[in-house]
């Protein structure tokens, strides 16, 4: 049973922001795949602002290598729009693995980010594309990097009066890109470990490497020291081996030793190694 809330269905962004400003304790709903489950499990809620009808929020635009994804664009759209397949393959691959067809038709990229689960599939690919979020309230518009936006598992910097309106990423032309995860089963599973990568190579050398590891630490993260280490190095097995060890060290540095690492670290190592080898 859902709590007895009152909902509004604004059609413009201004209307939505005005509601958020005046109501104070409103919860924003888009696809509802996370929020309604939480409510059924007992989360209380008195006011709901449903943003699925807000004009413009479901738009996707591409301009000069910059891709702006509206916050209510669904996972289904991200995984099937050809231009994203070309310009941000890791993201479209990741969104195509989320939940089930029904969940992908309902769930949105904004919802995935605001919910900020450590296992959210869309976060790692957005990290390697240096995603910048547009966040609006009635009186202010601000931008924040995705890295700063998520401050703890299931916790973001979003204030109650604010709305995440879009995510901006840069295309990475020339990079080979991908997303891989392990899960208990192929469909309808929470990802247990994931790696997103974008790698630029030239004549057997790593020119630029971007990696993001999901589900292993409280928040998906970029192992920056490893990216730095690989820059300009020849693509040979010992270098790749060293990079893989560095990744596991970074994970240990963030979380300390965990019982699950007996399983997780070898799997991460394998995923990273495959990503680097290509």
């Amino acid at each position: 049973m859902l709590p007895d809330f009152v909902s509004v269905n604004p059609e413009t962004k201004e209307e939505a922001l005005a509601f958020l400003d005046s109501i104070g304790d409103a919860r924003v709903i888009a696809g509802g795949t996370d929020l309604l489950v939480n409510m059924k499990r007992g989360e209380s809620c008195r006011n709901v602002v449903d943003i699925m009808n807000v004009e413009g929020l479901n738009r996707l635009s591409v301009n000069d290598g910059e891709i702006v994804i509206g916050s209510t664009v669904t996972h289904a759209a991200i995984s099937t729009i050809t231009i994203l397949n070309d310009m941000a393959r890791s993201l479209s691959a990741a969104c195509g693995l989320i939940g089930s067809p029904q969940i992908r038709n309902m769930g949105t990229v904004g919802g995935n980010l605001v919910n900020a689960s450590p296992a959210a599939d869309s976060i790692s690919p957005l990290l390697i594309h240096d995603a910048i979020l547009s966040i609006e309230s009635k009186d202010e518009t601000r931008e924040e990097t995705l890295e700063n936006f998520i401050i703890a598992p299931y916790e973001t910097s979003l204030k109650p009066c604010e709305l995440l309106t879009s995510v901006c990423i840069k295309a990475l032309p020339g990079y080979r890109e991908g997303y891989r995860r392990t899960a208990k089963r192929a469909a309808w599973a929470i990802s247990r470990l994931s790696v997103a990568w974008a790698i630029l190579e030239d004549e057997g050398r790593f020119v630029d490497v971007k990696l993001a590891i999901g589900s292993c630490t409280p928040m998906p993260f970029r192992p920056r020291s490893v990216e730095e280490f690989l820059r300009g190095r020849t693509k040979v097995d010992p270098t790749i081996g060293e990079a893989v060890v560095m990744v596991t060290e970074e994970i240990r540095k963030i979380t300390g030793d965990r019982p699950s690492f007996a399983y997780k670290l070898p799997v991460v190592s394998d995923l990273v190694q495959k990503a680097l080898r290509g």
Partner: protein
Amino acid sequence: MKNVSFVLNGKRVSCEVQDRELLLHTLRERFSIKSVKEGCGIGECGTCTVLIDNEPHYSCLTLASKVNGHDVKTVEYLGDADHLHPLQKAFIESGAVQCGYCTPGMLLSAYSLLMKNGNPGENEIKEAISGNLCRCTGYIQIVEAIRDAAGLCKCKS
């Protein structure tokens, strides 16, 4: 309360719904469409699947107010006992129905697939029904039924 107007199985309908009302309950209680079933209630089993604008959605996690102005289809759209849809016939002929609890949702996911892709491969079929659980058949018969029906049916929107 909110007034919602939508197209249900090809007919224009409207009704009053509570703000917190789920589409699942609107369909079952206000429109007596009992083919839409509540299994898990949290978006994991697929027995509550309906098509919204021809794409499968979980009605157990869809607020009824969301379908205002949209097109909703349940399995009743496909056919009835006297006029079965080729997809329904194929399910029967392949033994893809045992207890039948998953069947309406399964048929809708399959129907949505066939609307977009008249000749799906095995993996496409499996992917399309991956959000619908069946605890009886083991899926093989269901995949076969959808493949058999693909050649026979025209799935209209």
